[in-house]
């Protein structure tokens, strides 16, 4: 991997870090519960992207499964939280 692509990957990772920090601030501060759920869902999506970028950085396809797991678990947890906010219970 060439050096400038390394620097691009560093810049991308730092941007993802800043984005996750801003979303974490929103999740901690968020006036309502649905704001927090939205922010945590965004953090999960960016973490999944971070896994893919780290996989490109190490040139290893081992990071495919964590990314897939994060995408699935992020969807399931956000849907469960939204259902809980909507009904007061997850499974009726």
């Amino acid at each position, binding site marked *: 991997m060439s050096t400038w692509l390394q620097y691009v990957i560093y810049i991308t990772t730092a941007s993802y870090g800043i984005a996750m920090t801003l979303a974490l601030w929103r999740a901690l501060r968020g006036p309502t519960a*649905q704001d927090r759920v*939205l922010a945590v*869902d965004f953090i999960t*999506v*960016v973490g999944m992207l971070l896994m*893919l970028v780290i996989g490109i950085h190490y*040139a290893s396809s081992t990071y495919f499964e964590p990314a*897939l797991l994060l995408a699935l678990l992020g969807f399931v947890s956000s849907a469960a939280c*939204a259902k809980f906010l*909507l009904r007061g219970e997850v499974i009726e």
Partner: protein
Amino acid sequence: MNAAAVPVWVELAVAVLLLISAALALASAWGLARLGDFFSRMHVPALTATLGVWCVSVAAVLYFSALEGRLELRYWVIALLMSITVPITTVLLARAGLFRMRQQKQPGVPPPVRLRRLPDRSPH
């Protein structure tokens, strides 16, 4: 990291796609932190969840295809999965937010839709 076999145009394309996704993630987070309303805040993460995810998965497909010398399409599974699951989460969260705002009797919330019963037009 013995990735000397990757051609330059693939690295260039990967770099451009990764920078686009980084800019989209920053824009989403900025909107999430700055916008003042829940329903305004709800539409910004879709930037990352659609175009950002597609950019990174296309970059991964390109890079690993060039690295291993064969077609590696499985990174598109993630993009397909996200394109299925993100609308469900969005609709559920929007319903939850609307429901809670109505419960708290906040001003400016649209009222629930009342279905009018149509007149009976059956011949009997």
